[in-house]
């Protein structure tokens, strides 16, 4: 089947099998491998991306269902080489270890902050409670989102951020 969609602002078209999952379309057909997959029952959330401005588990969406719609992935968080504050927050607060859950977590966090710029800890935990992280124990993910909430207008580049030394 023929599909056309906007992915991170670019229009893409492709011929796909009707059974192809959106997560595989994005990863294998578009080469955007920042979106991961970690389960087969829609529980882990490593596949979270945005469909029409809302976080969805892309392992539970068929590529053909995204036909005519708008997709945003982790690769679309950074704009013009400037990191999203959420990305920087994850680095500042050690919100990631292996990094496998991180893109999905960040997509949800960005959405949360867009709708609730100053969420408290309970709200953040609630927002990410459909996504698993096996490394961090979540505490630093919560702190990372709080950091992003506190620094809404301070995007920087990946390199700048990595060189600074805290404390």
């Amino acid at each position, binding site marked *: 089947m023929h599909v056309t969609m906007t992915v991170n602002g670019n229009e893409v078209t492709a011929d796909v099998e009707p*059974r*192809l999952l959106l997560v595989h379309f994005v*990863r*294998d057909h578009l*080469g*955007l*491998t*920042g*979106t*991961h997959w*970690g*389960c*087969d*029952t829609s*529980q*882990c959330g*490593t596949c979270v991306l945005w469909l029409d401005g809302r976080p969805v588990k892309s392992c539970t969406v068929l590529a053909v269902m995204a036909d005519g719609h708008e997709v945003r*992935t*982790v*690769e679309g*968080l950074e704009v013009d080489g400037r*990191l999203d504050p959420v*990305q*920087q927050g*994850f*680095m*500042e607060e*050690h919100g*990631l*270890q*292996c*990094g*496998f*859950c*991180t893109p999905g977590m960040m997509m949800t966090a960005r959405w949360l902050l867009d709708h609730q710029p100053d969420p408290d800890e309970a709200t*953040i*935990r*609630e927002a*990410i*409670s*459909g*996504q*698993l*992280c*096996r*490394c*961090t*124990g*979540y*505490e*630093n*993910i*919560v702190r990372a989102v709080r950091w992003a909430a506190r620094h809404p207008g301070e995007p920087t580049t*990946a*390199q700048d951020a*990595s*060189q600074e*030394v*805290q*404390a």
Partner: protein
Amino acid sequence: MTTKLFGARIRRSEDPRLVTGNGRYLDDLGHDAYEVAFVRSPHAHARILDIDVSEGVEVDGLVAIYTYQDLDGRMGEPLPLLIPHPTLTHGRTQHALARDEVNYVGEAVVMVVAVDRYVAEDVVGRVRVDYEPLPAVVGIDAARAAADLVHPDVPGNAAAVMVQESGDAEAAIDAAPHVLELDLSIERSASMPMEGKGVLARWDSDDESLLVHTSTQTSTSVRQAVAAKLGLPVDRVEVVTPDVGGGFGVKIVHPWPEEVLVPWAAVRLGHPVKWTEDRREHFVSSAHERAQQHHVRVGYDDEGRLHGLSVRFWHDNGAYTPYGLIVPIITSTQLLGPYKPGAYRVEFTSLYTNTVIVTPYRGAGRPQGCFVMERTMDAIADALGLDRAEVRLRNFIRPDEMPYDHGLIFQDGRPLVYDSGDFPASLDKLTKLVGWDDFEAYRAQARSEGRRVGIGLACYVEGTGVGPYEGGHVRVETDGTVVVSTGLTTQGQGHQTMLAQIVADELGVPFDRIRVTTGDTRRFKYAVGTFASRTAVMSGSAVALTARKVREKALRIAAQALEASVDDLDIVDGHVEVKGSPGATIDLGAVAVLSNPLRYAFDEAAARATQFATPADPDTPPVAPGEAPGLEGTDFYSPPRSTFANGMHAVVVETDPDTADIKILRYCVVHDCGTIINPMIVEGQVHGGVAQGVGGALYERMEYGPDGQLLNASFMDFLMPYASEVPEIEIDHLETPSPLNPLGVKGAGEAGVIPGSAAIASAIEDAEGIPIRSMPISPSELFDLRSRRSV
């Protein structure tokens, strides 16, 4: 040196790639590869009668179907028994593809290679395998009863029976003023990294070489194993670890069947081949851990001091024993924690069952041992009416008794000797942090509000930094960049950052000029792997020693160039300087140029090292005797034995009087991993470990049916904690440096998970006044315990 990085909270150099979606995990690679799916056994125990692939071969896009019959040479032999032990009298390992019998649901039977995974799965659905089901042995009770056998030639289903003793425990117990007996058990859980396993193999037929990417915790050993299985010279095989989405133990096992089958198929087909494990496969065909049953007999005096401890336990090792007896050996030795047991005897039986294999999962046998010892401590306190912290304090090994020899043999085959730790000081920090002494007031207040609360604690000691060795290579490039490599692998622990911090300090170079590679056999060929909380100790020490060597060489060369004595030189911010004379300096990149006398000026920097560029002594060789070209070095660190970290956790829980819901109100950790390289990373490790400890205590269990079906083989039914289940964690550190290594460090990776079940059981017992003897515990189980008490 400008800033000291050792001990600083440095942001991780790994992160910029990972937060921008530029990580490279196994399934992100090899888009040109054929993909693999497996036909796996639906039976826990069965004979294979027939395999019919005729319907499968019709499918468009199929490349190959392989069964055991296709496996040639050493591929047809059982997989290696990785850790043999004289006591493991009945070790058994599986074939890469089942030969004539399957021993657990999930065992690989047929391998399908196709143009993509969708097609491979289509074919899998069309392959017919005829089985004759055999009786399945599931659970420790059935294995002990041995009415049926997993392997017909293993009597009593016992892979091994092992005894260790120091002193005459039974006599000491009989002679003690008080004796207690306890039966305790822990159920199965699993590492469950968010990324499953995966393998990608590329065969270069021109070069006759094989490049394997695998999501492993040991690339060097996979390399040897693949070469041996495929009959290739080792130097024709390289193994690279890409970004790994978590390991927690399960990825130290190797070679997994898929890890040899995928390279084998790639060679046969002359085409890249890839397999990525899906979640169900991970549940039914990777590895689990934890399940043990213990019987404890302990003798103690009126003060609560131990006179003798005798533990008999049964360990469920699953269908095969590729990883030997490591888990139960660790349980049997690390059970002792920070205590002097008086005389000690431990005997375990490692039992086969028709279930997934059991190999180390973070903590590796220690959570069980800690649970047993700490339940015993609480039982003694309860029997004597003593404070639980006080009983522990009375049994601690004191700091002035270090090094303390338990008279036992540890998992590394070396004596169990604790090198460091100050247990009374740690306990003091913990009771202050949690407010142990004020808890009764809090309890009374909660009670007046109709709430039921309890407090518990647990202590552990963890042997970390297990040998035999790790190595490091450090090279200064001519542009001043420093490349560092070590052979062990990384799965998210921030090794690149941590190792760069060490090198930055040792060599005097800026952190951001250092590039660290781990787990790439093309870069470093000698290594053991990442397990047993060993990276900071082993590779950390190795790269420190290596950087020191390179520093010495840099100073020797710079001394000549600056016409100064080595003693007057220092390296600051990547420049060698003559102390006290600003201006007399040469940057390390230039030193690297000088270290490599050249004939050809391939670039500007090189021109400075060519034969006519600098006047040289005509009578000495350009490369001095004993020196080698290049500003680089390699060194290894091999400790006499493990170094022992320790920690103590305290937990406050609230149990709902009606629903028996269990809520963690506070979780406090005091942790001693020696000197800390990066507190941010260490705390992150503790957080993650605690979350797994909470999962193991309250949620996670592998629910096997009596027929050996894993009933909850998905994240829908196997409950791992989400953000909503993990409490905030309060941490305090004590730093007692290890005397065994040059950095004074002890491992930190597994710490957080070890005392979880023990501390939470202690708190629930305190809240409820009901003995808690098995974990995990669900609200309905607690409800049952209450009902049984009230009848």
